[in-house]
């Protein structure tokens, strides 16, 4: 009886070709195996190299990350290239730095490309360019332009990731006791947000061949980037600050990224919602705008919206639980009704309601798209608003 409601989702056009990752041919399976091996070797190498400063939890985090990346990359060449580029350029940057932070100003490569600050500037510029290019491709119906846009997005994501890696190293160059993973304040997580959201989008883009959604999703990333730039110039926020004792924990390394997969997925769902509503307004009309003809079907967007919210919900659940485990260790209780915690619950309940509405009541289309957009504002408040307007235990990332 529960299956009945699924029929609503089932009437999509079958001519829509979805190219899924299949590993049938020998070539891809060989690549996949090389990739897995590479991930395994990287993990082992990292653990061996840093064995004296890693604890058991951190070793498990490395292993799980390697498994996750091996899995992600096995059928996704773009991600493999991205990872290799990030690794190579980060290592170059690290080796130019040596043990001297001052090289950031004297070395050409660091100064103009690879120092975290420069990498983030490139990332910002590339994201904005990608956004414009996606819309250009959409309006002029140009496949080629859209491919360029995808490439720009990959480039932006790669620069962002390189910037994060290099910043990680830079923090250690500032002082061994200052070093920490760059996910500890608002400035750093904004970059994480941009990178994660872009990766999620690229994943679905490849899966569903939906380049025409790119502009919409990148719009939210560009907004984040704009905010980020203001924040950098206005508040000197980019400076690396040492960690307060409560944040010195391996939990941070998993809690924050899991959270941002959630935020990124919710943001993407909302932007698909926007695209959905815009297209929906024009369907059935005698003359539809040129760009609308190029958009994916409403059913596909609806489906994608559901998928991203489900993904976001799953990771947000995980992140909130990890947060509770951490709180139990740092604050003496797994739940304190601290504003940030409470807003995480509010976000979570909101999407739980969304999922039930769709799953069991069969609601679709417009209302759900509106709800997803409202959901983004709720999420945004949990992410930013709480830090800006409310005070509590989580006041690490105050604006």
């Amino acid at each position: 009886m529960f299956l009945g409601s699924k029929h609503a989702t089932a009437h999509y056009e079958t001519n829509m070709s979805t190219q899924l990752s299949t590993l049938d041919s020998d070539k891809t399976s060989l690549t996949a195996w090389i990739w897995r091996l590479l991930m395994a070797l990287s993990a082992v190498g990292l653990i061996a190299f840093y064995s004296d400063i890693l604890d058991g939890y951190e070793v498990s985090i490395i292993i799980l990350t390697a498994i996750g990346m091996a899995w992600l990359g096995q059928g996704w060449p773009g991600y493999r290239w991205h990872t290799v580029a990030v690794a190579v350029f980060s290592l170059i940057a690290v080796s130019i730095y040596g043990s001297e932070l001052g090289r950031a100003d004297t070395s050409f490569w660091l100064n103009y490309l690879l120092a975290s600050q420069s990498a983030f500037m490139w990332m910002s510029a590339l994201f904005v360019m990608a956004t414009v290019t996606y819309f250009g491709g959409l309006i002029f119906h140009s496949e080629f332009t859209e491919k360029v846009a995808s490439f720009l997005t990959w480039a932006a994501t790669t620069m962002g990731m390189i910037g994060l890696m290099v910043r990680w190293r830079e923090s250690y160059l500032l002082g061994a006791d200052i070093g920490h993973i760059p996910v500890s304040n608002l400035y750093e997580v904004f970059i994480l947000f941009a990178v994660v959201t872009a990766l999620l989008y690229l994943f679905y883009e490849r899966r569903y061949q939906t380049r025409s959604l790119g502009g919409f999703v990148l719009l939210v990333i560009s907004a984040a980037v704009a905010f980020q730039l203001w924040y950098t110039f206005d508040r000197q926020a980019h400076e690396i600050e040492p960690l307060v004792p409560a944040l010195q924990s391996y939990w941070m390394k998993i809690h924050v990224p899991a959270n941002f997969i959630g935020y990124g997925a919710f943001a993407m769902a909302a932007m698909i919602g926007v695209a959905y509503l815009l297209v929906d307004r024009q369907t059935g009309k005698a003359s539809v705008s040129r760009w609308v003809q190029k958009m994916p079907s409403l059913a596909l967007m609806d489906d994608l919206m559901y998928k991203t919210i489900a993904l976001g919900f799953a990771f947000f659940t995980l992140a909130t639980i990890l947060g509770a485990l951490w709180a139990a260790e740092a604050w003496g209780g797994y739940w304190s009704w601290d504003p940030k915690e409470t807003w995480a619950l509010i976000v979570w309940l909101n999407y739980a309601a969304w999922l039930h509405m769709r799953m069991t009541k069969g609601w679709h289309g417009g209302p759900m798209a509106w709800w997803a957009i409202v959901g983004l504002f709720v999420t945004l408040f949990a992410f930013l608003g709480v830090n800006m307007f409310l005070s509590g235990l989580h006041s690490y990332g105050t604006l």
Partner: protein
Amino acid sequence: MSQSKDAQLPHRSFAWRVFHFLGSMEFAITMLITLAIASVIGTVLQQNQPYPDYVIKFGPYWFEVFEALGLYDVYSALWFLAILTLLVVSTTVCVIRHTPSMFKDMFNLRTNVQHKSLRSMHHHAHWHQPGTLSDNTNLIRDRLASQGFRTRITEKGDERLVSAMRGGMNRLGYILTHVAIIVICVGGLMDSNLPLKIAEWQGRLEIETRNLPLSQIPKESRLAVGPQAFRGSVSIPEGRAASVAYLPMRDGYLVQNLPFTIEVKEFRIEHYPTGQPKSFESDLVIYDTDLEKPLEQTIAVNHPLIHKGYAIYQASFGDGGSELTINAWPLFAGQSEPAELETKVFETRQMLWGDREMQLEVTGFRPFNINPDPTEDDPKNVRNFGPSIQFKLRRETGEALEFENYMYPVERDGRDFLLSGVRGSPSEEFAYLYLPADEHGTVEGFIQFLHALHDDDSVAEVAAEMKDETLVSLQSEQDSVLGDSLQRTLETLMAMFVRGGFDEVRDFIEQSLPEAERETLAPAYLAMLREMLGRIYFNSLDLGAEATVSEAQLLFLQDAIDAVGTLPRYGSPVYLSLVDYNHIESTGLQIARSPGKNVVYLGCAFLIAGVFLLFYLPQRRFWAWLSRDGEQTRIDLAGMTNRNPREFDDYFEKIHSQLHSSERNSAAD
């Protein structure tokens, strides 16, 4: 779903209808949203603040309304718990109603499908294959099994049905997810302070709102050692011990006895160069009669100690009553020697300074102060200003000023000053008094100067000296009227300056001099005042006849005059200077016992497993109906999934082609 059943069977009992209403999706969604909205309240209104703060914020009327609504502690208000309970009830009903069919769905291979219905499924295909019916049946079964399907062969007359399913655990995902909500809430309830609230309603407990020493806290506010959950805190100075925790409750607290004693041997804190704390930790010793020997362990933030189910966390730190030796330098007339005073942080005592009675409340001590000190090169530069004390001076009327005095002089523009900050309320910034330090780095030089200004004889002496010089220069030595008036004016000027600073002198000039002469006389008056101040200062220096005044002494004079000029606004009759200290730190421990914690964690594990199973393990079913068609076997294949229909298109094709492929061996690997 259930609604359609309701329509068919309208004559159900009331209880049945309530049960169905509680388990209905509408009700569940309403509760989810209601809970979300209700949760907002406690994030906008700061919870568990001191009640007087709320009164100030809302006024007495709304304060009471909000208190009645429980808004100061929303998350344990009855109505909030009621919403939570309804959500749990709704989920429970939902789970009870759906679990049987979910289980069935999980294991049932649906062997009773009709041949006809397979062909009408959205995903279906058929083909012919050589070979016997039973060979083909086995082949298809094996190939599906090799793809991870559970399979079963059913004989349908002389035809065969292979039913296959994978991802049945998806349905377990539903059960786990929803059971998790119940389990987490039950665990949360086990750790809540509901039992304390009930005890309070029954009158067995009373919240203590006064600030009492432990020994005087009445029995009604103390909780015996027991299995109950609690979360409290206690602050223990180094070298001391405690065996209780304080539980904050609304506008007061309760005291929870512990079955052991915690001694703090040492507290350590490290700082970053910016002065932010980098790490802090405490060496604890647990004395427990159940232990063979005392348990010694160091705890730090993120690294608690767990003993007998009690978790002890490093939560904060503070002053543990540092011992201070303070000199109270009089700023009033008649005394120039400091009064020495031994006190401690958090100590309150009555003082009599001159004719003013005041209560001194020492509120804090800091062994160092890293403060911003921007330079041209480095706008973010910081500097250590050394130790400081914080205290309040309270008048009989109850008003208090808050002070912050630094122990050592701080350099500014090449000169050393002793700093004292003062403010009327915590919301204000400190305004600083800069007292010039003498060559020994103390305030003594300044106090001597001030004392001389207060001393009528020395003022009179200098005034007389200046009067005489003036009369000589005017060549009217005999004019006693002029002389007396000059002498009086000079003395009054000085008295006004010492009493009210430059402000009062200026007011006097404005008010008492005729407007026509003000232009010329005002600068003359001020010059005379300065001359007098200078002479008094130089007299005190005991300079030999020949010696000249040094640059440093001139600057000191200038700074001292400025300081005297601002003293009237300082608000304290003395300057307290810290002479010596013995820093005693105290560690802030959070102590918790949460018997429901593991229950909650179990629920969390269920939730994660459940959600991922639900979303990422689609349940997929295939049926192959094999029938004889001449020499060949006809195969009707159908498939369905409960999620991701889009991916299933490809999946169906993949399975279809694998089953179809004529090479018999390819499926085996």
